[in-house]
């Protein structure tokens, strides 16, 4: 069901092609390095639809909606997903929820809106059949706290391997594996122990995992924009060298990297897939990602009174998205200052287009065998600020309560 081929490489960075057969009429192919489409409960935040691709579908969004999911019997139909959308059924939304403590030998606690909910092997197998994803991330012990040592790292590897084995068995028994079943994206855990990371990799390779998802680096209470690749890169070095030699190549997915320079660096290390959550993260903070840095900054805070006079130009002259083609920067500023929902919608369109352009740029650089160092330097200043630093667009729920005349 999944075919991953590498067409070119530059150093350890590689250009790849991920093909998923979503049935005979809707094959999906994705160029890598690429990104999964961030969404919540089947919807891109703020957008009615987005380009074709692989929808990142974290289970933690659905654990408090099991009655509905079971009633509907089919997640794709429930969410009215278009046929050209493929799914990666993952564990936790990396943008909003931190991996929270709560793993036993029997279950993994996932965060939901109504508190922690347990995910067991049996439940995940049932939900996999209800969802029919092309890719699934079997449950794993992804928990990490600052100060956790080798012992904890070993336990996370052992538990995750046990979950992996039991999940594949459960899926087989329920008829969910084999020719038509999902490809398995195994969680690559092992904390900050290089030895455990290597051990985990070897064990997953021997089990024939179709792909790998890097987990267990971001501390459970660490905000997403605080997490940098430099925090964990050295732990992975040896294991990545081993990974590079393995055949056939398997796609490597590193979720939770939001800073463009980190994405570039991770691509340089050989990673292929990233979560496309940056547009949502920027949009909820009222930030637009510009085509070129202006005044030293890549981001423009659109809810700025000074921008109301910008009636003669779009948000970003270098961008062809609908927001930049149809509206002036003044209008966008006015909408966001007025707390209008349309501000988020237009900003999200722009930021989504910008992310797509960024990945095009990344792939072009690899293809032309340019050193990615130059690209990393270009985007070094594109650092997502913490929430407190920027006044966000009003939280949508708060906005919905705002009763106007």
């Amino acid at each position, binding site marked *: 069901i999944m075919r991953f081929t590498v067409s070119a490489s530059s150093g350890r960075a590689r250009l790849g092609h991920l093909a998923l057969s979503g049935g005979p009429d809707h094959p999906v192919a994705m160029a890598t390095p690429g990104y999964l489409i961030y969404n*919540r409960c089947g919807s891109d935040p703020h957008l009615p639809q987005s380009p074709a691709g692989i929808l990142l579908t974290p289970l933690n969004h659905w654990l408090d909606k099991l009655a509905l999911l079971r009633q509907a019997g089919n997640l794709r139909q*429930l969410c009215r997903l278009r046929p050209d959308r493929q799914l990666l059924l993952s564990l936790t939304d990396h943008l*909003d929820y931190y991996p929270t403590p709560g793993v036993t030998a029997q279950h993994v606690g996932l965060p939901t809106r109504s508190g922690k909910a347990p995910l067991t092997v049996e439940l995940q197998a049932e939900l996999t059949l209800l969802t029919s994803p092309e890719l699934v991330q079997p449950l794993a012990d992804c928990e990490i706290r600052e100060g956790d040592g080798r012992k904890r790292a070993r336990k996370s590897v052992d538990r995750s391997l046990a979950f992996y084995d039991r999940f594949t068995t459960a899926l087989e028994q329920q008829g969910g594996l084999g020719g038509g079943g999902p490809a398995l994206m195994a969680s690559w855990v092992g904390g900050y122990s290089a030895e455990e990371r290597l051990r985990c990799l070897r064990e997953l390779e021997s089990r024939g995992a179709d792909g790998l998802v890097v987990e267990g680096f971001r501390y459970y209470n660490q905000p997403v924009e605080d997490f940098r690749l430099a925090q964990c890169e050295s732990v992975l070095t040896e294991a990545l060298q081993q990974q590079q030699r393995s055949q056939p190549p398997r796609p490597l997915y590193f979720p939770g990297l939001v800073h463009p320079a980190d994405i570039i660096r991770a691509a340089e290390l050989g990673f292929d897939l990233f979560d496309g959550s940056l547009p949502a993260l920027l949009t*909820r903070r009222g930030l637009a990602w510009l085509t070129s840095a202006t005044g030293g900054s890549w981001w423009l805070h659109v809810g700025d009174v000074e921008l109301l006079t910008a*009636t003669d130009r779009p948000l970003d002259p270098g961008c062809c998205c609908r927001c930049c083609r149809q*509206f002036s920067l003044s*209008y966008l500023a*006015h909408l966001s200052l007025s707390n209008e*929902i349309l501000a988020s*919608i237009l900003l999200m369109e722009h930021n989504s287009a910008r992310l797509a352009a960024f990945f095009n740029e990344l792939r072009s650089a690899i293809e032309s065998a340019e050193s990615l160092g130059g690209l990393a330097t270009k985007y070094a200043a594109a650092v997502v600020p913490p929430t407190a630093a920027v006044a966000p667009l009003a939280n949508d729920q708060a906005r919905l309560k705002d009763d106007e005349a």
Partner: protein
Amino acid sequence: MSMATSNAAYPLKFNIISKCGTTAARTAKMQLPHATVDTPVFMPVGTKGSLKALTTDELSKLGCRIMLGNTYHLEILSSSGGLHGYMHWPHALLTDSGGFQMVSLSKLCNIDEGGVTFTSPYDGTELRLTPEESIRIQNGIGADIMMQLDDVVHSSTTGPRVKEAMERSIRWLDRCLAANARPTQQCLFPIVQGGLDSDLRIQSLDALASRDVAGFAIGGLSGGEAKSTFWRIVKLCTERLPAGKPRYLMGVGLPLDLVVCVALGVDMFDCVLPTRTARFGVALVPEGQLQLKKRQFETDLRPIDDRCSCPCCTGGYSRAYLATLLKEDGVTLGCSLLTAHNVAYMLNLMSEMRQSLVDGKFSEFVRHFFRLQYPNPTDYPEWAVEALKSVGVSLLSGEDVKKSSCNVDGSGDVEVK
């Protein structure tokens, strides 16, 4: 004070196509600079230059050809080619004078003969709005139809203030008409005032009807007054206003209000209902309303209304899934879909009324509407029953009856005009 030149060509042509043989309802084509609009018409409200979670493309696709727009950044629009370009809305626009919003939103407000002084709800500075300034701003916005600045009084106000406001509004109308710098591109509607007092209303009506204007608005009637008085005032106004010009009832209303007031002779309406209720997860359907966030819809996999042709219902989005989206933080899709559905519902209601007028079946449509909304006839709101009876429709007997005329205070059988 000079009046508008009586030979000025209006940028509005109102051609009545069909009149109901029983009630005062009629359907017409209203030609405006940016669109031809079929009446009776419901105008969605995009107060701050956008229609809550719906883009102008989506609104246009639903068949909307005129909407209410307004904005606080008025100076900017004069230099950027008006609100049409700013919002990317190619069809017709109607703007309010800014008076009502400012008065209702600001904390302090002083009215004198010159104009209104208030604190801006936007950034707290003190602003002065005069009739001339309101028209200057509305000329900059460029809407097809502008509203006069009137001295707004809440419908619950009684006493000499009501008369003062009504008379001042007439003087302000003349100042607005004189100040219109674009009379061949933008027309101006006066607003009938006088509170709930029929004598004051008649004074206002007579004064306004003698001005050379393209249409009329009826104001001061969306503030929670008793419905039994509401409909009598509406009827008083529609009976006295020129038949060949459009009548716009401001701030109205619920589907029920629309049906009754069309029967009374109103042509144009506006209300935040469809967009506001969408934000609270309420869907409009022929049978009433669905509160989607309630438990009963948690696993309801039906579309909001399988008879509806809006993108939400034809797209197969279920009530349960919409409820899920509405409760999810940081997701606007639920709000967008529900807004589209509610606006489509209102536009479709008007479309059905227009068609029934063309087919000569308006009374039947009215009865059918009530049967859907109120399965039990004893639940029919009394005011609606009376109002329709006064224009010849008996909801309860199922047959049209002789029209009657009623005074605002409820005393009946004054000779029919």
